[in-house]
């Protein structure tokens, strides 16, 4: 099985990518501004919901229950969706999903496809596969369109072009649409996008989407959005293909009650999404004549098998953890080398990847806990990060790194009072070449990362325990 997460296989480590991004002041200002606006709006609409914590608990319980019986709910969805006139396909990995999708499009002689709201298609690298097969994909979500026209990569799971400001978007549009003049007011930009997109909506006969929820009970599919472009994409073409990860299934229509409240408030700070599209199979008089759902595993069952980290699959892709994360807010999403950025990306990408290419990601966190606090489905991201760090260390054990040797030696020191006290004495002696005027300003090796911008207080002449010892002795003598 070949699991793939977009371009992540070739991505540099988080540290390397961050090194470059931290120098991009424009990008960092854009990210800071956008995340500030969203977190502020979110805080407002969350505060007004008095049962927010109970809703989080409920959502988490629904997700845990669904994952426990995932096989049954998926089979139920297949049956109900098929009964409503849809076609359900199962894809074990990215290659299989891409093959199914290309064959479906080719069967209808499609040379173009309009796409919307599908991060999962980025996960499987669909666009490049389509292009290679002579099929042109048009992204129709405004932000995805900006990314596509600018030959860029998404940096956020809800607001993919969050790292671009209006002036930059204007330049991209002028270049890609061949416009001689264009203002940079929101109305100017949306007007240009509208004119460009309407033509595609009316012309292209095959639509492609992701899914927020698959409803096992009814066979229905739900997509939520802010622009109405998805609504166009879902209703105008003759053929609609939806790609969804297997964790997107929920048991009943009634479960939407919880998720349709949690998601918009967490994602964009709105009480409700402006557009909530729900469709079930096909209908004779309206909408697509043919509807396909491709259910994608691509590493998800492997995550499900891990008791310590399966809650990763609870994620409803709201992006709240990105907006609040102090690490994401410094670097933006590109540092995570994957369509899935931020704290959720730091746990999801390495698991989808079986840790081969993304061992730096579980360490891209100070474990401050802000992500867990805002997560609407209560994924304890810091705990999962720690669990994945354990896996990284275990897998690196063959080649004993300097770090591993040091950590193991320290652990041994801590298992004996005698060794601990000896290490304290040694440290006091060993530090003296580095101390000047009562501070340490330069350290060698990895520790130099500390002294790059921070001084370090040296060990004082007396440890606490020696002070205590002395005091005991004085008390005793007195």
């Amino acid at each position, binding site marked *: 099985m070949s699991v793939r997460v977009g371009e992540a296989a070739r991505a540099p480590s*988080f*540290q390397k990518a*961050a*090194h470059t991004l*931290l120098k991009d002041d424009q990008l960092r200002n854009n990210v800071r501004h956008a995340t500030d606006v969203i977190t502020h709006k979110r805080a407002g609409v969350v505060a007004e919901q008095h049962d927010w914590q109970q809703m989080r608990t409920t959502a988490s319980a629904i997700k845990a229950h669904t994952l426990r019986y995932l096989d049954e709910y998926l089979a139920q969805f297949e049956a109900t969706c098929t009964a409503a006139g849809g076609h359900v396909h199962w894809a074990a990995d990215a290659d299989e999903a891409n093959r199914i999708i290309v064959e479906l499009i080719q069967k209808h002689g499609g040379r173009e496809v309009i796409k919307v709201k599908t991060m999962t298609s980025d996960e499987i690298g669909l666009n490049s596969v389509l292009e290679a097969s002579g099929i042109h994909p048009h992204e129709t979500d405004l932000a995805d369109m900006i990314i596509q026209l600018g030959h860029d990569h998404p940096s956020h799971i809800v607001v993919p072009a969050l790292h671009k400001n209006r002036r930059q978007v204007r330049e991209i549009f002028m270049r890609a649409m061949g416009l001689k003049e264009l203002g940079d007011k929101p109305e100017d930009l949306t007007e240009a996008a509208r004119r460009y997109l309407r033509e595609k909506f009316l012309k292209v006969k095959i639509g492609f989407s992701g899914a927020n929820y698959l409803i096992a009970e009814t066979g229905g599919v739900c997509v939520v959005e802010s622009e109405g472009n998805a609504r166009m994409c879902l209703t105008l073409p003759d053929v609609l293909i939806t790609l969804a990860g297997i964790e997107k299934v929920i048991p009943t229509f009634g479960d939407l009650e919880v998720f349709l409240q949690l998601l918009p408030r967490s994602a964009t700070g709105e009480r409700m999404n402006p557009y909530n599209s729900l469709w079930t199979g096909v209908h004779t008089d309206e909408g697509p004549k043919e509807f396909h759902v491709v259910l994608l595993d691509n590493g998800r069952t492997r995550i499900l098998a891990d008791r310590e980290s399966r809650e990763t699959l609870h994620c409803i892709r709201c992006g709240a953890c990105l907006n609040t994360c*102090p*690490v994401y807010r*410094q*670097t933006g999403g590109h540092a995570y080398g994957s369509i899935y950025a931020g704290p959720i990306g730091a746990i999801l990408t390495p698991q989808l990847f079986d840790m081969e290419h993304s061992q730096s990601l*579980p*360490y*891209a*966190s*100070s*474990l*401050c*806990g*802000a992500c*867990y*606090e805002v997560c609407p489905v209560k994924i304890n991201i810091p705990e999962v990060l*720690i669990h994945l*760090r*354990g*896996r*990284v*260390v*275990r897998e690196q054990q063959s080649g004993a790194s300097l770090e*591993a040797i040091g*950590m*193991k030696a*320290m*652990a041994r*020191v*801590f*298992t*004996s*009072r005698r060794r*601990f006290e000896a290490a*304290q004495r040694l*440290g006091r002696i060993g530090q003296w070449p580095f101390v000047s005027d009562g*501070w340490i*300003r330069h350290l060698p090796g*990895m*520790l130099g*990362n*500390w002294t*790059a*911008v*921070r*001084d*370090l*207080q040296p*060990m*004082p002449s*007396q*440890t*606490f*325990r020696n*002070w*205590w010892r002395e005091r005991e002795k004085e008390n005793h003598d007195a």
Partner: protein
Amino acid sequence: MDQGTLSERKKTTLRISLFVACYNDTLFPETGKSVVRLLERLGHQVEFPFEQTCCGQMHYNTGYQPEAMPLLRRFVEVFQDSDAVCIPSSSCVAMVRDHYVKMAEAAGDFALRRDVEVLLPRVFELTELLVDQLGVEDVGAYYPHRVTYHASCHSLRSLHLGNRPMRLLRKVRGIELVELEELEQCCGFGGTFAVKNGEVSAAMLADKLRCVTATRAEVVTAVDNSCLMHIFGGLHRQGAGIKAVHLAEILASTEEGAS
């Protein structure tokens, strides 16, 4: 203790075992000394079990979970007969409280898990011990300085200390408290994160230092010396002239000591 909570017995003298934390023991002995002076001033008896070393947080959080196991066992062995364990470091308390049960369970050692569960209700961060268990907010401290308080991540989101540290600080005589902007933002320390992702950590620290210097405080305080070591290291490099002082040291200060 067999029966009753500590708060029910707060008027009586308690025997409090200090887990000072390995890095306080080695790098910040003043914090440990201050806890001892403070608790003794309040009429309690403090003991320091010498066999204590480290709670295992650094190993556990960095991915060396098997290496943290013997440290868990050691902690339980050293403290299982204590009436109350006081830890002047919220991240160490979080390590013990959030992970020890899970670790014992993962090791399949159910006797150990039971020992942990029995011990946990008697393990307190310093401000929890003072406010909740000993029922004091005015500890009789005197500290005539302009001070800002940094809320460490573990104190906020793991221990949910809330306003306990501020309630204690507000009762300190002579103190001038200034609120820190972006109080809930991480300072960027994060243990080995500061070294493994030194540049991102430095960028986070820069934001924190901007907020700290904007207060024009003489002293920045917190319930964790780990954050303070990070913040003070940055302040000193910038020559900001602001000191970092653990909350225990402020609470231990008295008029007699100052004069």
